[in-house]
């Protein structure tokens, strides 16, 4: 063979390879081919006894994040030769092909295990939250994952009366309603503050776990770090306070954020509903102090309509910086207590702070003044009522006789 023939073969082979390659390309299903059928709004099919639409709004799909990938990048088995039918139904799309990390996280989540391992069809897969053909980033207002839409997206299953709620015991009720009335919900819906906490802020988007699962972002062990995503200042204070496991070593359960603030009912601390709640919440652990508190003026006033401003536990003890009274950082330490009382009583003085906030007249050793005063007064009452009560009772028959005498006179 001459040199010219070898190079000629080389060029011919190259040309043929190029042709075959290009022809192969020409036969990859373009989106237009799919849309020949799937642009028909009336196109439906039956699956599991229900009629489902096969219409794809390409105008929207064009704007999605996956537009440039083409239909067959997800629907691999739809890539058939021209003129052939693609298999029906198509195989389920596996987002993990590209979204590997999220897929792995999802697989070990509660939603993932329920759907993939237990086969629970009411547990969400990717498309239940992200849609199929309208996948838009969370920054896009139209996306179901846009902050303003998140509660509705989660709420489509996590609401009273849904088929999911009927068959699963979630443990929390009226979640979306409570959230809407909470400080976070009001921030979102009333102020349009999209940086406020939504479901995914606390529960994570793809690693939702049951609260009693130690992997859960809202488990007792983890909730502080979850709230710390935003409430850094408060968590800083809390970690130095007496309620933090870093400060108090105890077997007893220490309170975490939701013990005082609840999970979804989180309201502003000046609001009536929070103030009415807080005395109850503290009483879960501090029963004795709570009982004696309700015997004092502050406790009683707070129970009446209009009395919500009366001092509650957190007004005197602090909320996140609670320290034992012996610490000079404690709100009720003698160094600080006059200032604390002055918050509501501008004329407070040292004598004033000697008021016993948790006293009881039952304790002779600790509070003798209260004990003896109580029993002296009780003695006075019992004595007076006994004497005059007897007087009254003994008068009754005599009085009846007098009355009948009068009546018979007429």
């Amino acid at each position, binding site marked *: 063979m001459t040199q010219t023939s070898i190079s000629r073969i080389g060029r011919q082979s190259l040309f043929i390879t190029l042709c075959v390659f290009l022809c192969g390309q020409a036969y990859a299903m373009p989106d237009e081919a799919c849309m020949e059928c799937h642009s028909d709004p009336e196109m439906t099919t039956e699956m599991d006894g229900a009629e489902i639409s096969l219409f794809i709004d390409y105008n929207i799909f064009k704007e999605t994040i996956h537009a440039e990938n083409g239909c067959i990048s997800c629907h691999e088995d739809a890539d058939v030769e021209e003129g052939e039918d693609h298999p029906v139904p198509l195989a389920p799309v596996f987002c993990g092909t590209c979204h590997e990390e999220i897929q792995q996280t999802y697989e070990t989540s509660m939603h993932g295990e329920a759907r993939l391992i237990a086969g629970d069809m009411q547990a969400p897969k990717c498309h239940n939250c992200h849609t199929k053909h309208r996948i838009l980033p969370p920054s896009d207002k139209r996306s179901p994952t846009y902050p303003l839409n998140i509660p509705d997206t989660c709420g489509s299953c996590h609401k009273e009366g849904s088929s999911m709620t009927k068959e699963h015991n979630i443990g929390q009720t009226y979640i979306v309603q409570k959230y809407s009335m909470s400080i976070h919900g009001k921030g979102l819906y009333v102020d349009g503050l999209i940086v406020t906490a939504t479901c995914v802020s606390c529960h994570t988007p793809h690693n939702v776990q049951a609260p009693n699962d130690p992997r859960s972002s809202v488990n007792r062990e983890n909730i502080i770090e979850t709230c710390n995503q935003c409430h850094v200042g408060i968590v800083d204070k809390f970690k130095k306070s007496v309620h933090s496991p870093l400060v108090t070593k105890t077997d007893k359960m220490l309170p975490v954020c939701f013990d005082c603030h609840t999970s979804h009912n989180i309201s502003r601390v000046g609001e009536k509903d929070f103030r009415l709640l807080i005395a109850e919440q503290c009483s879960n652990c501090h029963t004795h102090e709570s009982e004696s508190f309700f015997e004092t003026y502050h406790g*009683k006033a707070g129970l009446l*309509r*209009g009395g919500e401003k009366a001092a509650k536990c957190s007004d005197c003890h602090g909320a996140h910086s609670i320290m034992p009274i012996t610490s000079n950082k404690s709100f009720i330490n003698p160094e600080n207590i006059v200032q604390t009382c002055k918050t509501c009583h501008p*004329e407070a*003085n040292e*004598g004033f702070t000697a008021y016993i906030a948790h006293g009881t007249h039952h304790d002779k050793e600790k*509070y003798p003044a209260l004990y003896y*005063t109580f029993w002296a007064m009780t003695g006075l009452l019992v004595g007076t009522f006994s004497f005059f009560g007897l007087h009254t009772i003994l008068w009754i028959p*005599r009085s009846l006789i007098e009355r009948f005498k009068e009546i018979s006179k007429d």
Partner: protein
Amino acid sequence: MENEQVQTLYIERFNVVQRLTHLLVILSFLTLALTGMALKFAMEPWAQDIAYLGGGFVVLGALHRFCAIVTFFYFFMTIVMIHAEWKDSQKSLLTFLFAPEGLMPNLNDAKEMLGTFKWFFGGPRPYYGRWTYWEKFDFFAVFWGIAVIGGSGLALWFPEAFSRFMPGWGLNVATIIHSDEALLASGFIFTIHFYNTHLRPEKFPLDPVIFVGKITVDELKHERPREYDQLLGSGELEKLTSRRSPRGWLVKMAYTAGIFFVVTGSILIIYIISTMYQYISSH
């Protein structure tokens, strides 16, 4: 002898000043009791209802303090009136205060009290004068009450000022004294006093004299025989009696207001008693 139609003779027991004062006492006392008990028993639903209907805790507090001022006022006015009476009488202070038919308790009252217990068991009815011992007790109980409730109340009203010369735990003591004395006062008025004046079978359902002012001379003769005899003997009786019966509208108003006050007080004390019964039986 002419066949005279027997006309009823009336005598005034309480003049208009005394009657208006007592109305003031009733209005302020009832308000104090309602507003105060709503706080003392704040954990009870009925107390919360009172607060709700009354316009809330702040309104109740304002009403309570206002009526406390009214109470100090009528107390002060009573002292002023007694002083004026004393000056009028031109007697020495002690003679005036301890006049035999005056309001000061004396040995005769002790005898009458004993006599009354005997009467309960079938003995003769005591020879009661202008004021019976239970009326004198009621009168002076107010002095005691105002001193004790008023004093402790002022401490609770101005806690910062009081704790300048009294330790702060004095406020806890003041609270016990104030609320227990209030319980004594309200309890006593709504049970014993109501019984003595209105609810005893002889008077039931109401004795309107404290608003109407006049009673019949027959009633005087029966209820206060010593007073009747004294007035008859001295010739005063004729001067004090009249044929004019109390005005119809006054009697109607007296009964309406009276029944309303007695019922309100009774309902309140029933709630208080049932609540206290529950507390005591559960401890």
